[in-house]
Every structure is written in C-alpha cells, then in structure tokens.
C-alpha cells in the first residue's frame, strides 16, 4: 500500500533519513522504533507530504505522492504534539475538519473516541486553554474521525492518562481487526506489545531492519518486545 524507495532527507548537515526503503501493506500493524532523533517523525511527515524528501520517492496505492494531495483522504494522522489554532473552540475544529473532508469521506464518521474521551463536555473550550493531554485526545479523535484506511499515529499515548491511553489502545486494536494499515511510533514498548505485527527499527536515519514481531522474538531469543528491543539497542550501540 505504501512503498518508500531510497528516501533521503537532510536538514542542513544532519541526515535525518538515509536511503530508507520500506513496504507497508494493508492489514499490517507496524511499529516504528528507534532512539530519539532517528528519523521516525521525519519519515512519517514524508509520508504525509509535510516534509519533501531530497530524493527518492514514496508511492501510495501505486501512485507517487509528490505533487499529489488527494491520497491524504485515506490517511488519519495524529501528530506528536497536538497543535491547533489557538482561538478556535474544540467543536469548531471538528466542524472545520468535517467540512473540509466532506467530499472525500469514504464512509461514515466515527465519533466513538470523542464520547469515550469525554470531549463532549468540553466542546466549547478554546484550544489554547486545553491541557497537553486534552489536545492529544482531540488529535486522536480527529485521526479516527473519518474512518481512514491508514492510521498514522506519532507517539499516541504520550501525555495521556492511563484510562485514556487504554481507551485509545482498545480503539487501535479494533481498527487493526478491521484490516487497516496502522503505523505507530512510540517509546512505550509495553503499549506496542499487543498492537503490532511488524517492527521497523530506525537508527541515525538508516533502516536497520523490518521484521515481523514473531521473527524478532525468535532472532533475539526473548519472549517480550521490551527485552528484544533492549537487546537490539545494546548490540547496535556497542557492536
């Protein structure tokens, strides 16, 4: 569904993505893992067209995403930090997004998360008065709102309280069972354990490996994802 070929991106002297080639297919649930600054967010932003790669290309459903925009109707994106126009109310943000994506909505709206997070009660609050966690909730609700085929979640559970975090995980798992492609980055590996089927490991902008969870556990001889990744990180840092 998403194929990245030799994607390079540098910010000045820093090489954020170094020849990354990846294939993501429908029905997979992929975790992007790597140390801070390894290029996870940059890669996600490249997928969304927010960052333009220096060279290499990315295709979505066999169409190059450069100069294209319509493909984004199939993607629900939850950014790392929810940044919204300060003087809009929550309900206005939702209404605006519904208005803008109205024509491209494939099937009905999915407003489960809005009620599950209890956002119904604070719909009239201005965005600037919201706490970091509430902004994350708005971001998550927006990502799931349009029933997209692909969900891209950048550190979804960071900043959420345990209850909300659990609600979000349940939601992700239910979407996974519907056969959607899910891309998640997170540093909380225990959260990823029951969500993912595939692991992509990035380090210093390079793709280190792309394996199924099962394969990774066999290769490292560990039972838990947390320990398996810890072992990978150690062996990469001190070869």
């Amino acid at each position, binding site marked *: 569904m998403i194929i990245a070929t030799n994607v390079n991106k540098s*910010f000045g002297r820093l090489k954020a993505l170094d020849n990354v080639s990846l294939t993501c297919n429908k029905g997979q649930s992929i975790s992007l893992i790597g140390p801070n600054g390894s290029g996870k967010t940059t890669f996600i*932003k490249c997928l*969304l*067209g*927010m*960052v*333009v790669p220096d060279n290499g290309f990315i295709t979505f459903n066999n169409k190059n995403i450069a100069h294209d*925009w*319509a*493909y*984004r*109707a199939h*993607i629900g*994106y939850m*950014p790392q930090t929810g*940044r*919204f*126009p*300060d*003087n*809009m109310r929550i309900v206005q*943000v939702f209404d*605006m*997004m519904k*208005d*803008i*994506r109205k024509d*491209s909505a494939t099937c009905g709206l999915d407003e489960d998360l809005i009620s599950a997070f209890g956002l119904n009660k604070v719909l009239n609050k201005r965005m600037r008065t919201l706490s970091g966690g509430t902004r994350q909730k708005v971001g998550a609700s927006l990502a799931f709102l349009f029933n997209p085929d692909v969900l891209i979640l950048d550190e979804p559970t960071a900043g959420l309280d345990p209850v909300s975090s659990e609600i979000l995980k349940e939601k992700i798992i239910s979407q996974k069972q519907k056969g959607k492609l899910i891309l998640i980055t997170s540093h909380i590996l225990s959260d990823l354990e029951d969500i993912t089927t595939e692991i992509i490991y990035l380090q210093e902008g390079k793709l280190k490996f792309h394996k199924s969870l099962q394969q990774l556990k066999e290769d490292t001889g560990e039972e838990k994802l947390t320990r398996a990744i810890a072992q990978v990180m150690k062996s990469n840092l001190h070869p």
Partner: protein
Amino acid sequence: MKKIIKYVVLDILRNRIVLAYTVFLFIISLSVFNLEDNAAKGLLSLLNIILIIVPLISIIFSTIYVYNSTEFIELLVSQPVKRTGLLLSIFTGLAISLLLAFLVGAGLPILIYSASGAGFMMIFVGLALTLVFVSLAVLASVITRDKAKGIGVAILLWFYFALIYDGIILFILFQFSDYPMEKVTIGFSALNPIDLGRIMILLKLDIAAMMGYTGAVFKDFFGGFWGILYALLVMLLWVFLPVWLTVRKFNRKDL
C-alpha cells in the same frame, strides 16, 4: 478552497483589528474632507495619509497573521488539501478582508465627498496597494521561518518602498541632472508601486504642472490609454510576482 477562505475570513473578522483599521480610515477620511473646504484639496491631504498607512497596515497585519496561522497551516497540510490552494486561500482571505476594510473605511467617504476621476483613481490605487502589500507580506512570512525576522523583513520592505526608495531616486536624479532623465523616471516609477500610485493620482488632480518638466512627460505618458494600461500591468505584476514566488517556495517547504 472556498471553504478555507471562509475560515480565514471568519478568523480575521473575529480578531477585530481589521474592524479597527476600517474605523480608523473612516474617521481620518471624514475629518480630512471636513477640514478642507475644497474636495480636491481634501483628496490631496488624504493621498499622503493613504500612501503611508494602507501599505503599512496591509504588510504588518498580513505578516503577523500568516505567522499566527502556523498551527492552522500545519493542521491542514496533513489533510487532503492542495498546498497551493491552502496558501492562495490564506492570501485571498487576507486580501478580501483588507480590501473590504479599505472600501468601507476610505472608499465610502471619497465617494461621498469627491466622486470624481481623481477620487475613483484614489480608490483604485488604495485597493491595488493593499493587494501588493498583502502579497509581499505572504512572501516575507513564507521565506523566513523565524517570526521576528519575518516581521523585520516586512517592516524593512515598507520602509524601502515608502521612504528609502524616494531618497535613492532623488540622489540618482540629482547626480545625473545634466542628462535627460525624464523618460528614465517613467521606468523608475515601475519599481515602486507606492510611487506609481502617487503619480497616477496626482495626474488626475491636474497639478502635474507643478511638477515641472518631468510632470509634463508624466502627463503625456500616463495621461493616455497606454499609460493607464502600463500602470495597471505594473501593479498586477507587483501582486502576482510575489504570490507566484511564495507558492513555489511554499510547495517545497518542510512543515
């Protein structure tokens, strides 16, 4: 695109600065026309105020507005929205609000007190300058990532067009006063939309005779159909060139 323009205009109306600008222009225009017994004299006084204030407010307000909509832009680029469309919508939204403000604030009093050729020319020049400086503002705010730097660039641009440029022209004309410079000054006028606007209005006010020999050359050139067409084209170029550069830059910008 229409939907995004709607949200931009609603947002601008909500923050009331444009409303204050409208009221300010309205009060100034009314008081200038009431102070002078002759409408042409009032127009002349208004001319200098408008040539300073309209570009200043247009460029500063638009630059700050684009920087303040960073979140809005970030939110929308991850959605199925064309980048070019997004930028043009912000430009159009800004342009619509400021053009309306000028039409109501200055256009209405001018029509009431001096609905002459010069009055219409002044409304046209005011509208054109608004567009030019909104497009320069959008350019300044897209090419610089830092907000303070971007606003600084915008203020410098205004300074250049409103003050520094005239100084440079005076210097050049003085240095080359032994040569026939009349034709060249027509070319110079294209380099500064504010100057071009001033010339267009002064010629309509029939005081070109006071500008000496150069005034006669201007009268001869800008008085005719081709002169008007030339001025119109130059103004259009001043609007579209910055917008075009901005769109090109914005399409490759990392957000």
